[in-house]
């Protein structure tokens, strides 16, 4: 009887091989088909991904188009409010390659953070906010590139709801009519970290800072790959296709040592409501389940993630834990900031390290960057702004890559 049983060795052998998934046996429906049906019925305008784009494989083997330029930058509340170097790094990278983009002022928050925190909204309100933003992008001719992981996940979920519920589409259309806007759904909902993934070879070609001495851990953002899981990018070359490829693929391309740790699937502890009004949970989770585990198992110089809440939570939660003698002290950056730094972005004018609280100086020193020199330079900018001789830092000040030196 035992002759026909699968052996442990056979299981380990199977697990050692990369997973290559077949789209024809995907366990979920292809949203693209449903969107095309709605477009054919005249129910929606389907905004097509502009050329040039690159196609990648998502979790169940389907293809996803990632636009390289002509993008409408759907900004993130948390980036722009509390980690501005995150947003400015994304745009700086576009500018380095002269890619056409639009930084709009007719965009509102997706309001998803508030919805996940308080539920003080409803399905119609949330779908109308998303649709208004997408209509605004469509009116400009640029294609939405979503900076925030929560917006990305929230919009994917709302897209499913709109596709499946005619009453919801009718409610949203009634509201949009009052603004003279059409119901537009983009062909793909694209997260900026997918654009970073698409551009990683180009970034590596222009890399100025050697990052081979750095060991980094990766925190994949929950709302990127857990909500509507099939719409996240997977690659057999990265973790054997068992985890999303974004972020990790970039770090490997930049020659960092990406170290694994056992709680990679855990969330960061953000909690949406918790991080604003009940941070005992947030702090404990971020330190005990993430940072301390990373240190015990990988001892990283840096941890890298791709969402607003994750950067804030993992970074800001470390201070209080020091009082309890917990193991902390891992600086936290987004993939976009790492890519910009690798290509010579100014650590303060562009990457804006001073908005991060966990000590980032040892990390920069390990990269061979004399952070004090660039901090002094930045202080000179601030002195001029205070004196009124300079209104602020502009792209003219920030565009030029610098040969970061010790």
């Amino acid at each position, binding site marked *: 009887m035992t002759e026909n049983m699968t052996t442990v060795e056979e299981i380990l052998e199977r697990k050692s091989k990369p997973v290559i998934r077949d789209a024809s046996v995907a366990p979920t429906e292809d949203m693209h088909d449903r969107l095309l049906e709605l477009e054919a019925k005249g129910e929606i305008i389907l905004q097509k991904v502009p050329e040039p784009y690159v196609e990648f494989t998502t979790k169940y083997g389907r293809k996803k188009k990632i636009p390289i330029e002509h993008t409408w930058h759907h900004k993130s*509340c948390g*980036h*722009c409010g509390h980690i501005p170097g995150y947003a400015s790094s994304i745009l700086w990278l576009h500018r380095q390659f002269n890619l056409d983009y639009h930084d709009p002022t*007719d965009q509102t928050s997706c309001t998803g953070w508030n919805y996940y925190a*308080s*539920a003080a909204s409803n399905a119609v309100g949330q779908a109308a906010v998303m649709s208004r933003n997408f209509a605004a992008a469509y009116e400009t001719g640029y294609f939405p590139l979503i900076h925030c992981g929560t917006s990305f996940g929230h919009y994917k979920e709302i897209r499913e709801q709109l596709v499946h519920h005619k009453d919801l589409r009718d409610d949203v259309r009634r*509201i949009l009519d009052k603004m003279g806007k059409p119901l537009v759904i983009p062909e793909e909902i694209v997260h900026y970290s997918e654009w970073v993934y698409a551009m990683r070879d180009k970034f590596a070609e222009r890399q100025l800072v050697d990052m081979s001495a750095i060991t980094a851990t990766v925190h994949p953002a929950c709302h990127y790959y857990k909500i509507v899981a099939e719409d996240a990018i997977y690659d057999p070359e990265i973790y054997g296709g068992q985890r999303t490829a974004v972020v990790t693929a970039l770090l490997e391309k930049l020659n960092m040592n990406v170290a694994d740790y056992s709680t990679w699937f855990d969330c960061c502890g953000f909690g949406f409501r918790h991080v604003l009004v009940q941070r005992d949970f947030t702090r404990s989770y971020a330190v005990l389940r993430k940072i301390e585990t990373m240190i015990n198992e990988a001892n990283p110089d840096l941890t890298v993630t791709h969402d607003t809440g994750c950067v804030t939570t993992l970074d800001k939660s470390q*201070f209080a834990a020091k009082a309890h003698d917990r193991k902390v002290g891992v600086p936290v950056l987004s993939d976009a900031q790492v890519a910009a730094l690798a290509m010579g972005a100014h650590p303060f004018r562009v990457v804006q390290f001073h908005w991060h609280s966990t000590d980032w100086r040892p990390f920069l020193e390990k990269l061979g960057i004399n952070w004090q020199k660039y901090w002094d330079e930045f202080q000179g900018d601030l002195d001029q702004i205070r004196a009124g001789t300079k209104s602020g830092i502009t792209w003219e000040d920030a565009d030029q890559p610098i040969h970061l030196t010790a």
Partner: protein
Amino acid sequence: MPTTLDNWNPGKAESRHPEATYEEKERLFLEVKNDTRYEDFLYGCYECGICVSACPSARFYDFSPRVIAQAMAREDVERIYDIITEDIWNCAQCFSCVRCPRQNNPGGLVTILREVSLKNGLQESKDALQGYSRVIYKVMLKGNQVSPDMLQPDFFPDWGPWVQGFTENMHVWRKAIPMDSIRGLTDVAWRTDRKTLLELYTIWFESGNMDIIKELDESLYDLLTEVMEEELEEG
């Protein structure tokens, strides 16, 4: 009373909240069940616990996404009332639970439960959102969830001396950002056109969102309504 073989009821839960009638609890459950999304979020429960193993709140609170899915699948009105009054605000809304092999979405069920709780003015939800009103005010009126001027030492003492240093330098740091849409702004995250904000206010009124705010916090509702109506009138 301790559970023994004599009093053990493996079926539906006993009432732990006699302050509400069964009919009232059932009415709330039916409101949840009639939500458009309910059938997308619940397909039954194997009781395998995969959702619990992935759940951050289950590690730190007496909270279980499995119990939520089970109670919903059994239509256990008493247990659902326990959940709506005791558990829903512990959920971190990370959606780690959607790895469910039955494709349940316990996090999504929590979202609906929270909405129903707010719409019906349950005190437990008002308590959970104490201190949060200023964020609702910001996002509904300014179109941004957070802004630099919300980073005050009184609100974020656990973030350490960085916050104090930030507040002292906020205005000059904000001018030292190269993005035109952000530079110099402290009360919002990015610059938003007036027309866009008026469109956002229209959404809040037309979607029924304001009814929820009225149940949650009447003074917040009055404040938001006054400002938004005045702005919409001006056009």
